[in-house]
């Protein structure tokens, strides 16, 4: 990897991150209602108290200044406090492990099943297995189906919540993982098929290499860059909190608290959550790009 590419790629992170946080911040800033009154539970406040709170949270400053105060806090790992006085960072720390476990479960299913499906589908084209990648059930449907069949009817797995330990994560992970595996399978399959048509593959077959080696060494290696890219994007999205899945299965993760935050008009919590997910997204993407440049050196000389 060329040093120039590394530096250029690192520098790109800064404007994107600033812009993303600005958008999220602006969106929540636009939310109707006076945050000070909300903090007071919409009861009348003495003007002096009101003004003191406004000053303490920099609400008397223009939007841009508030944005810079927020960035300053963010740089120190401080995401502000909610209107009930709790540190947003504390809430995120509390919810993070739930989303992390769910992400790891779903991601494992995606990687294993998705790659398996892709190879099988490409090698055995136009068979029943080839169609398995067409599983297109949206998360919202798959979630309820799994919950109903394995939780409610068969009683094999917990229906909702996280009181039952690791087994609580099986159904939610499947809900997310199966769909992602299918879409990864579709992408990887088309990529593998493209590469199979390449001349170097024909040459490898002509040289008499066993099929497994041709697929493993020559085809898959060339399909690695797009696959790694998609895996990175999916991982980042999962870490941002799977809102629908966490709602269906009552998992108190980041997505679940985002919904709670929105319903209770908890602005600082919402900004904190979406900012965290954007930060995770930007850095995962950075990592993936550097990884891809490692896999395929041509990328860094674009």
């Amino acid at each position: 990897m060329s040093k120039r590419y590394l530096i250029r790629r690192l520098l790109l992170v800064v404007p994107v991150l600033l812009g993303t946080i600005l958008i999220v911040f602006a969106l929540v800033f636009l939310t109707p209602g006076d945050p000070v009154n909300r903090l007071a539970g919409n009861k009348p406040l003495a003007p002096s108290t009101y003004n003191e709170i406004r000053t303490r949270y920099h609400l008397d400053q223009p939007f841009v200044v508030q944005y810079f105060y927020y960035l300053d806090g963010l740089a120190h790992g401080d995401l502000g406090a909610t209107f009930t006085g709790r540190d947003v960072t504390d809430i995120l720390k509390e919810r993070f492990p739930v989303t992390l476990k769910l992400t790891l479960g779903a991601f494992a299913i995606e990687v294993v099943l998705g790659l398996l499906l892709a190879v099988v589908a490409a090698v055995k084209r136009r068979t029943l297995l080839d169609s398995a990648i067409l599983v297109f059930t949206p998360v919202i449907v798959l979630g309820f189906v799994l919950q109903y069949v394995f939780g409610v009817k068969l009683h094999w797995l917990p229906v909702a919540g996280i009181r039952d330990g690791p087994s609580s994560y099986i159904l939610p992970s499947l809900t997310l993982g199966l769909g992602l595996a299918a879409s990864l399978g579709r992408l990887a399959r088309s990529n593998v098929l493209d590469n199979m048509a390449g001349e170097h593959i024909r040459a490898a077959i002509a040289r008499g290499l066993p099929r497994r080696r041709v697929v493993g060494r020559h085809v898959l290696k060339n399909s690695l860059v797009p696959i790694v890219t998609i895996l990175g994007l999916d991982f980042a999205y999962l870490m941002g909190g799977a809102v629908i899945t966490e709602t269906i299965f009552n998992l108190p993760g980041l997505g679940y608290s985002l919904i709670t935050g929105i319903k209770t008009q908890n602005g600082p919590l919402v900004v904190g959550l979406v900012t965290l997910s954007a930060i995770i997204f930007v850095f995962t993407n950075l990592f993936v790009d550097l990884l891809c440049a490692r896999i395929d050196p041509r990328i860094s000389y674009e």
Partner: protein
Amino acid sequence: MSDDLLPPPDTEVKPHSMTEALALPTGAKQLTLWGDVWRKLKRDKRFYVAAFLIAIFVLMAIAPFLFLTKDPNACPISDSTLPMSKQHWFGTDILGCDYYSRVIYGARTSLEVGLIVSSLSIVIALSFGAAAGYFGGWVDTVISRWADIWFSIPTILGALLVLTLFNGGGPVLVSLVIVMFAWPDMTRLVRSTVISGKSRGYVRAARTMGSRGRRILRRHVLPNGIAPVLVFAAYVVGSSVGAEAGLTFLGVGLRLPTISWGLQLAVADTRFPEDAYLMFWPSLFLCLLIGAFILLGESLRDAMDPKLFGGDG
């Protein structure tokens, strides 16, 4: 798919490249790229399934009355949650409305969202993505960084935020908000397609013959790079229908009196798992609609991939 994109296979047009002309067996009719795509689609069972389902859903959206005899808004509360019967094929919902009629009417909303998101994404991608890819330099920098910023906010999360500001809305608003966060995907795709397309031989030939920038982009680069965009557009229909249902289910998307599968799922959730049939029917239709567009995308992809021409497909 409009007819001007797909000429009938027997149209006599010059082959678009030497290799293809050579690959054709003697006596076979000469084919265009699109004629070839059409020929391959006609042999693909997945395409027929997709076309059949989409035709039905479009009919449902345009003329729902063809499918039913009952008014979806006639809801005697005394008929609440009746089981399936000859009177009510899918039973009735909580308010006593005929569930079959409600589910049929939901097709219009979903299709509307899917088509708006998909066509707007195409328009944005073909203008901004193509400009970024073709002109490069600062145009590319500005557009690409702008796209990166929006790309970094997950669609569902961003849409959740914006729709909360509006306190929900109709299909058009929900579609616009989804586009707001979903457009960078296709724009990035078009950009990279244009970049790889503009160094091709026929583009260099056109430039040598004196064609200017915009004409080259319009006449040579875009038509030859349109295949991945169409395939992706089919997927976008599916994913945005799913996104709408999810957002509505979470309570920030569509609101009554709109009839939508997402709203039906949200209501069904309050009666789950007791009245599971309330969940079943909109779920089934949602899957069929999304599945139809993914199947369409898959069959288009296989038919349009030039590398697979002449393969075992």
